[in-house]
């Protein structure tokens, strides 16, 4: 037990004393958000199987805080879109995104979700950023679990360093407005 290296999350910068720790609220909120993201696995096709491998014990996404896969959009933090989104499915995806509560992040996994992938056809939506705003894109067909975890860690960086009032800012509202989301 003594020679095992156990990594813990770095504490944010602040003033430490006997029995107290003082720092910025944004840092603590970011720390809490980043290390407990509950994903909504919107798995449609092959990338969904790689997600199942990521959630398995070999690659284990739950050590990043995603122990509980929330299939209910209201209780999820991050929408992981994995797989091809056809035009028939696009309204369903948009509805699921609208049901999520702020703060929410979107991770687009796989070439099909990022840009349509190898399916440049009449029935496939050429990238989910046509309909919802995306935070991190993970390319690959399908991406290896390490890549999906890398994308997930980038979302963690975004969540940690995000300003608390970003979701109420005009810029964010303009971004949502450009997608037709109120």
């Amino acid at each position, binding site marked *: 037990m003594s020679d095992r290296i156990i990594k813990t999350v770095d504490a944010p910068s602040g003033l430490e004393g006997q029995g107290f720790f003082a720092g910025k609220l944004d840092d603590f909120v970011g720390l809490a958000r980043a290390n407990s993201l509950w994903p909504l696995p919107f798995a449609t096709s092959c990338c969904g199987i790689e997600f199942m491998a990521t959630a*398995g014990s*070999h690659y284990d996404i739950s050590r990043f805080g995603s122990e509980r896969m929330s299939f209910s959009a209201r209780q999820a933090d991050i929408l992981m879109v994995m797989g091809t989104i056809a035009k028939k499915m696009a309204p*369903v995806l948009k509805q699921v995104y609208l049901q999520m509560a702020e703060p929410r992040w979107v991770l687009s996994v796989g070439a099909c979700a990022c840009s349509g992938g190898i399916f440049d056809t009449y029935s496939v939506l050429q990238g989910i950023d046509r309909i919802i705003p995306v935070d991190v894109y993970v390319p690959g067909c399908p991406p290896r679990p390490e890549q999906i975890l890398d994308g997930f860690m980038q979302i963690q960086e975004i969540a940690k360093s995000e300003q608390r009032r970003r979701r109420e800012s005009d810029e964010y509202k303009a971004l949502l407005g450009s997608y037709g989301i109120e």
Partner: protein
Amino acid sequence: MAEIALVSNPYVGLVKTQKNKKYVNDLTTLNLCPTHPATHGIFQNILTMDGETIIDAEQTIGYIHRAFEKIAERRPFYQLTTLTDRMNYCSSPINNMGWHLTVEKLLGIEVPKRAQYIRVIMMELARIADHLICNSILAVDTGALTGFLYVMQWREHIYEIYEEMCGARLTTNMGRFGGMERDLSKEAIRKINILLDDFPKGLLEFESLVKRNRIFMDRTQNVGVISTERALNYGFTGPNLRATGVDYDVRAMNPYSSYEDFEFEVPVGTKGDTYDRFLVRGEEMWQSLSIIKQALQNLPEGAFHADAPHYYLPEKQQVYGNMEALIYHFKIIMGEIDAPVGEVYQSVEGGNGELGFYLVSDGGRTPYRLKYRRPSFIYYQAFPEMIVGTTLSDAIVTLSSLNVIAGELDA
């Protein structure tokens, strides 16, 4: 509310009585919609329910329609292998090999024995991977999460063997017309031997958790029953048909790629319920292990690809040094070699049943028409008939046991 089609339904009389009693408002419409966690893949079921009992079901599919057949008319033959991976993505090598067999039949290429044995090994590994997912997800739907986590470990071992063979984990694009792209390396043989030694213990562990478990048996016996006549009428093939008692297996009936050299049994069920489908898939995994062992022991020496310079890319060393190889390389990649005119139908035993490829070629570099006979599309039609009169939880378990894969359903 969507239109409801009442199809041969024992509850028709009940609805009429309820109408007379003005109880018609008590029927609920439940939308088991595309993003439900328990439907593995995106397809929609609209259920009309009376309390907990299902009276009618209607389905909408096409949520992942990617126009495979239209793409197939625009891409040269060798590029279509990547497309076939993405149909039944749990067992991609079987789809790849099926496509290669179809084109080899059209072109008249004969594949050497060693390549055929390697193909058999890869196809059986894919079958094990597919059945592992189906059985473990069936257990997850009844509440047993542990089996799934144990089983994903074994899928990682199979992925490593795929990586040795072709470089990719899931969508493999394995093999070429005329054989395989590389020989079975020593590392791959070592890994397959480790799998043959360790996997039986793992499979026994999974089965001991679930197979004779009181709760699992109560949840799955006599649930989702379909009779043999209705199954044949609906075009069932594969484990779903074998669970009703018909021993139709394409590997035994129309052997391809040297399957006639191997001794294996075709497991058959009796009642056609969910438990039988689970048992048939479990037993098929043991048979696949035995086939892999036989193939590895009797692996013949020889070339791993046919001598077909018009269709099989020459080695890179040769391309850089030899004029002929350079010309063949150019002609194959730029598509200047035309295929013969003809129509071919070839089917293989996929994880879900008979996966067929109907190829019509008009002599150009792309197919004129390529129709995939997709087993999931064909047997999913029978789902309403299997669940009418049962409860919602039975419907979920039945759906899991059918192993409907969305990529194959919609193509």
